[in-house]
């Protein structure tokens, strides 16, 4: 009885959570430009699958290019950030050096600033470096993340120190310990960082909007928002079709990485 009740509760919760997604898909199938329908008319009489074609193959919005840009940026940032932050985390967690603790505090302190605080200096830096309106402007600022360093460091602190000592006795260098021992054992932490980073890069709107001007350099999130006009003429069915297209890759990634999300939250609480 108890089990049935808990299943029913979970089912109700699932319906509640999935309803907006279903609503989004149904609205996307109404004729282009039509207003948001009433609940009773939500199921379209003739589903307009052509809306997806219209968004994907719009003559003035190069959606294929947006997809490619989003993938290039997300993959480059995830790989780059994993490499850089894991090196920093390794040094902070496993190598004893003067000022290590202070350095870690500095990292933690940088997490206290809201992202918007650093946006203008980063923009001006990119401008001075001549990197605005290029994919580099979207990749470089994402290559490091104090949060990722923190997360990996916490995980590495939980691994037995005997592993490093045994390796050093056998003549292993820091690099060998890092690449052959620590990283293979840190796969859960790395997967968590990778999925968090992917989601934040994929859904980032404001930075790609600031840093790029040309249509061909827009990411999916920014490029498709053009269907949402802020001056009252929102084309709701197309806007919703664009939202579904933007969301799908995230749903796929989430299905493969959902367990790391909960792990990630647990990990940040480890010593």
């Amino acid at each position, binding site marked *: 009885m108890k089990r049935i009740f808990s299943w029913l509760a979970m089912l109700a919760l699932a319906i509640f959570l999935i309803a907006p997604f279903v*609503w989004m898909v149904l609205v996307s199938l109404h*004729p*282009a*430009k*039509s*207003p*948001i*329908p*009433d*609940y009773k*008319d939500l199921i379209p009489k003739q589903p307009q699958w052509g809306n997806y074609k*219209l*968004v994907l193959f*719009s*003559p*003035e*919005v190069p959606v294929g290019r947006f997809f490619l840009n989003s993938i290039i940026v997300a993959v480059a940032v995830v790989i780059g950030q994993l490499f850089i932050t894991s090196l920093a985390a390794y040094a902070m967690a496993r190598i004893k050096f003067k000022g290590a603790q202070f350095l870690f505090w500095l990292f933690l302190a940088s997490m206290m600033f809201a992202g918007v605080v650093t946006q*203008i200096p980063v*923009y*001006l830096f*990119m*401008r001075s470096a*001549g*990197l*605005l*309106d*290029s994919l580099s*402007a979207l990749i470089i600022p994402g290559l490091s993340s104090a949060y990722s360093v923190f997360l990996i460091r916490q995980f590495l602190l939980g691994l037995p120190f005997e592993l490093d000592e045994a390796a050093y006795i056998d003549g292993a260098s820091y690099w060998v310990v890092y690449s052959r021992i620590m990283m293979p054992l840190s796969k859960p932490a790395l997967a968590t960082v990778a999925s968090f980073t992917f989601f934040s890069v994929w859904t980032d*709107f*404001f930075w790609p*909007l*600031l840093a790029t*001007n*040309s*249509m061909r350099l827009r990411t999916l999130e*920014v490029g498709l*928002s*053009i*269907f*949402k*006009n*802020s*001056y*009252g*003429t929102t*084309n709701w069915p*197309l806007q919703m079709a664009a939202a579904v297209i933007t969301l799908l890759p995230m749903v796929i990634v989430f299905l493969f990485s959902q367990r790391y999300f909960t792990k990630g939250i647990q990990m940040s609480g480890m010593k």
Partner: protein
Amino acid sequence: MAGCGPGPSGGKIVLRIADWGGAGDDSVSAQIERDVYAGFEKLYPNIEIQREGIPGSQDYVKKILLGFISHSEPDVIRLDASSAAVFVDNDILLDLAPLTNGKQGINLSDFFPNTLEVAQRGKSIYAIPVDFTPMVMYYNRRLFDEAHVPYPTENWTWAEFLDRAQKLTKGDRFGYTFTNWMAGWILWIWNNSGDVLDQHGKASSTATSQSTVDAVTFIRDLVNKYKVAPSLSQQAAEGALPFANGDAAMEMSGHWNLTTLTSAPKIHLDDVGVAPIPVSQPGQKPVTVLYESGWAIGKHSQHTDAAWKFIRYFTSAAVQRQLQKTGIGVCARKDIANERAVNDREREFLKIVPSGKNPWGAKVQGYDFVEDEGTKMMDSVLKSGKDPRAALKDFASNVDRELGKQ
């Protein structure tokens, strides 16, 4: 080098033009716009246009400001009346007065005077108007006829509005639909001789005046007491547009609304009428707001000559005649606006234009904060049942504190 302002590209000048994007589909309006831009490049083969669509009104302001700080703002900038002050009053734009008076000038008397005022400061002018819309009261003639209710008149009052709205409210159908969007509901306050700011940009004296309190009380009563409009939570839950779906008989909106109504399956465009916003007292003159947009030139532009050529081209009668087919706004040129007024509805829009004032955002920097606070204030009145006077008092003190920082 990317991002450092365009230079010649294959011997061509690259002219960067920023606006807030558009429908972005292959609709007729997008095609018309493409044709207009292509027409310019054909006319001036040495100029290549790089269009930069920046969606989101607040993000648009931030991006252009950041571009200005780093001397990389676009050459030509679409200026929205609602946020014009932040650009015009911060010396971000080129004064176009010398260009308008020059040999290749523009005759400013071709434009509606109240649209020019948005970016005029003394003898300087910082943007040439393109199009605009007055806010009007839309009504659905079919629903009025079915309920045997007379259509709105030119000088109708709040009492007449309420009477009609009550007669039109029946079952699932409402007489009116209210949206908590300050750019719209501020007109209830204006048409009761109230306001949210005074001429010095202060809220404390005007926002707590009896006229303003009475207007907010009237809005509250429409929704909560007389129930002639769906509640905010009812609307949010349904997520639908009641007027476009034939569930509400009246709605306050701008000319752009027609583009949605054209494709709405439950309303016929011939049934759509427009009227001035009702006034609180008989004999009072209705007032509306003009939401206008125009073209400006960035102060750091290296291509002011090409930018001016573009503005002259875009605001010319021939191009505006072509562009106005999109039906999003009313043309800022009087000649073309009159040409386009081929039906009663369009003529009604033009009749309302002389009563149009500029939005506060055209004169006061940081007005977006006032609008955010206004939305919160209205939420507290309509959703939490807060007394309008107390809500407006809090609103005024928050606004004065924030605007006082500037």
